[in-house]
């Protein structure tokens, strides 16, 4: 169905090709997962399928890409719209209309499909993706998960033979991600659709894959094989594979279910051992306190009555479904929002209404899109600007950045940095004011396992130095690694607050893979298990 014949692609002005001698043949009805580190060329590979690369991006493509027998050399993306549906990384950025139903119908209108057929397909798609209640809603009012499902629906209605998705679940909470993946699963099984998708969160998708394409980057050849074989050697792998490698299971399990069936002996070996974890409430004093906080946007209540205390030296995870009020709580903690009720105190004073220059010394927030914080032409200029902004001695920010992400030239434009590097630069900018409380909103969006491991180290270092970190995230595996305490929000209220081990193992949606495999024992990460086995 999708054929790459000896494809080499170089972006205009780039010294090296991004795709090098790619030979890839994906038969009809296969679900194929593309894995690889950030910046290895996954998105380029996906966008070459419908011809956006090179028709839209420019650059030089040698070799042949064809889909359903149509060569992308002679067919620009619009002439492939009836065979390839492409969903980009940020679904909201690709919306053309302003209401759910119109968005679903848009591609069909362009293809000239008969009105009666259009109507039926829109209804089918609304059912398939669970969007019925949202059909009349303006797109701007949808949550991230809903937007993602609308974006998938908007290409599905054209009944393409091939569906290409770039990180479809990276912005979604675990239940919403499962919903989207279940819908994809149904498309592959019931409609025989060919699906090609890139994803960093392998723990979510690898079990559904028929084959895995590993893009190593650096001009090396693609590895294409069954998931088990690729996972045995790949540098990026989900926790369940890590556990399998540790225990030496063969065949390597890819799903929690397979792993549980193999895990009997491992559970026996672990029975009288317990994970070593830091104490929940470290001896440090209170950094910030939230009492009865309520925030409303017009008639919408974002936070109802939230109580929370953050102490020196702890990393706290803030979880909850999309739209549960996590970002609002963070915004209130840095004084971006005026509380409608209750009190927020950071460093003993309310942050709202104080001059920005004072607040940044008490609390720093890295927003969901770290790029928002960066405007300078080069990383070095960004660091210098941060020094002047916060009044730190010259070179402070550059030194922090060098520690967080070593070996990056100061002349690099912030937009040319990878997601992980950009996050490090934004972190360095915020940390230059040395705030005792650091807030992070969804820091792992777009990060691969290597960048995530680096982030875990950084956060642990901060906590060890007496700082407090509050981390809003959907990434249960990251929470298991780094946070001793977890707070779960729902409908603007705190529904649980306690040690991570207790909170996440209680709900199946939020439990990390290792804890699911080894339940009822309470292990959270592969590291914990490895240490217990060694010790």
């Amino acid at each position, binding site marked *: 169905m999708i054929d790459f014949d000896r494809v080499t692609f170089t972006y205009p002005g780039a010294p090296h090709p991004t795709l090098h001698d790619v030979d890839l043949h994906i038969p009809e009805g296969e679900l194929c997962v593309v894995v690889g580190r950030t910046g290895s060329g996954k998105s380029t590979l996906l966008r070459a399928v419908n011809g956006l690369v090179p028709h839209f991006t420019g650059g030089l493509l040698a070799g042949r890409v064809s889909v359903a027998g149509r060569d992308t050399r002679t067919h620009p993306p619009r002439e492939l719209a009836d065979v390839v549906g492409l969903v980009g990384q940020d679904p909201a950025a690709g919306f*053309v209309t*302003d209401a759910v139903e119109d968005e679903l119908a848009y*591609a069909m209108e362009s293809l000239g499909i008969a009105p009666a057929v259009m109507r039926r397909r829109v209804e089918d798609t609304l059912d398939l993706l669970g969007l019925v209640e949202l059909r009349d809603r303006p797109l701007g009012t949808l949550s991230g998960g809903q937007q993602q499902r609308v974006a998938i629906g908007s290409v599905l209605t*054209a009944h393409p033979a091939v569906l290409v998705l770039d990180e479809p679940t990276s912005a979604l909470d675990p239940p919403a991600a499962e919903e989207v993946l279940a819908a994809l699963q149904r498309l592959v099984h019931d409609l025989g659709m060919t699906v090609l998708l890139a994803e960093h969160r392998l723990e979510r998708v690898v079990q559904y894959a028929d084959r895995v394409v590993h893009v190593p980057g650096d001009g090396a050849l693609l590895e294409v094989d069954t998931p088990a074989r690729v996972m045995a050697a790949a540098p990026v792998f989900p926790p369940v594979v890590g556990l399998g490698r540790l225990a030496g299971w063969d065949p390597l399990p890819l799903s929690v279910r397979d792993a549980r069936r193999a895990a009997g002996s491992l559970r026996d070996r672990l029975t009288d051992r317990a994970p070593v974890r830091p104490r929940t409430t470290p001896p440090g004093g209170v950094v910030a306190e939230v009492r009865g906080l309520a925030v409303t946007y017009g008639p919408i209540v974002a936070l109802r009555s939230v109580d929370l205390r953050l102490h020196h030296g702890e990393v706290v995870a803030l979880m909850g479904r999309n739209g549960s009020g996590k970002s609002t709580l963070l915004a209130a903690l840095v004084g971006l929002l005026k509380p409608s009720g209750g009190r927020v105190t950071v460093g003993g004073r309310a942050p709202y209404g104080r001059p920005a220059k004072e607040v*940044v010394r008490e609390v720093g927030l890295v927003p969901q899109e770290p790029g928002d*914080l960066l405007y300078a032409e080069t990383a070095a200029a960004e660091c210098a600007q941060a020094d002047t*902004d916060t009044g730190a001695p010259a070179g402070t920010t550059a030194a922090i950045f060098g520690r967080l992400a070593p070996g990056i030239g100061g002349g690099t434009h912030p937009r040319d940095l990878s997601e992980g590097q950009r996050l490090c630069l934004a972190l360095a900018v915020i940390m230059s004011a040395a705030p005792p409380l650091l807030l992070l909103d969804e820091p792992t969006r777009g990060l691969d396992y290597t960048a995530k491991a680096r982030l875990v180290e950084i956060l642990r270092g901060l906590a060890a130095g007496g700082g407090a970190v509050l981390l809003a995230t959907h990434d249960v595996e990251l929470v298991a690694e780094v946070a001793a305490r977890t707070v779960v929000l729902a409908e603007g209220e705190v529904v649980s607050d306690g040690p991570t081990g207790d909170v996440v193992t209680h709900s199946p949606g939020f439990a990390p893979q290792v804890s699911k495999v080894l339940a009822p024992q309470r292990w959270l990460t592969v590291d914990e298990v490895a240490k217990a086995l060694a010790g």
Partner: protein
Amino acid sequence: MHPVPRHLHPGAWWLWAVGLATAASRTTNPVLLLLIAAVAGYMVAARRTNSPSSRAYVVFLRLGLVVIAIRVVLAGLFGAALPGHTLLTLPQVALPDWAPGVRIGGPITLESVAAAGYQGLRLAVMLCCIGAANALASPARLLRCVPGALYEVGVAVVVAMTFAPQVIATVSRVRAARRLRGRPNRGLRGIRGVAMPVLEGALERSLEVAASMDSRGYGRSGGLPQSTRWLTAAATLAGLLGVAAGSYGLLDSGTPGLLGLPAVALGVLLATAGLALGSRRTARTRYRPDRWLPPELLVVACGMAIAATFIAIGGTAALQPSVSPLQAPGLPLLASAGLLAALLPSWLSPSVPGLQR
């Protein structure tokens, strides 16, 4: 009459509002003008949708108040005072002889304030009518009704309209980010610091949307030969120019009637021919097109009725009450009938589905 709730064809609401605006343009009688605004407001309250543009009426109403204020202040400062009751006297600036008829300051009379107020009110009420049209049927829905030949243009305008709210969202995000870095948001440097990232963000979004539209089939060759496309474009453009000239004639009571209706009719004919020619062979279709049924015709007729009564009364004292000497404005019977006719759609038109009030 209780028809099944449904969305009325947006064109019907817009034509109804155009009728109302035409009536408003024909009079300076404050009683009639306020009644027209009230009719528009009542219809918005009864039939507005739940789309974001449904708040447009209030926005346009506020804009209208600003217009009245500006008109009155300017007339007081610079306008030639009508003789009559002096309210207060401002110090007058003496101007040289070569500027006769220009005045700064001086006495302000009740009569000149009233004249300026009436004219400001007329403009404000016309703005209200546009606001009502926006609230009753969003412009995006109106654009969905463009004929197939103009499909691509319509989509481009819809995308452009979603752009403004996006920019506002980006501005607030960038301002928040600046605060997080401890930078000033005010002053010249603040504005420059916000403008650059906002522009960059807007450009990036445009590229994203373009890529998305391209991969979803925007601009597929519809199989139209070049000559047909040219002919379509020429006829449509000429037609639209005719409509524009004709509308000017209709709205401006000083223009001879010859330029009004006939020009509109000719323009509509030309544009329709051009679009029909183009649409006949395009391979685009419409999802759930709005249909044109009897209630739509009734609503349009009601809008036309009020316009017709006001045009029929003509430039009499009833529509243009005297301000010098100042007289109490009357309420002409025929105009009242027109107003009542314009109010009829609140019973005749089907109610909006899915709204709980």
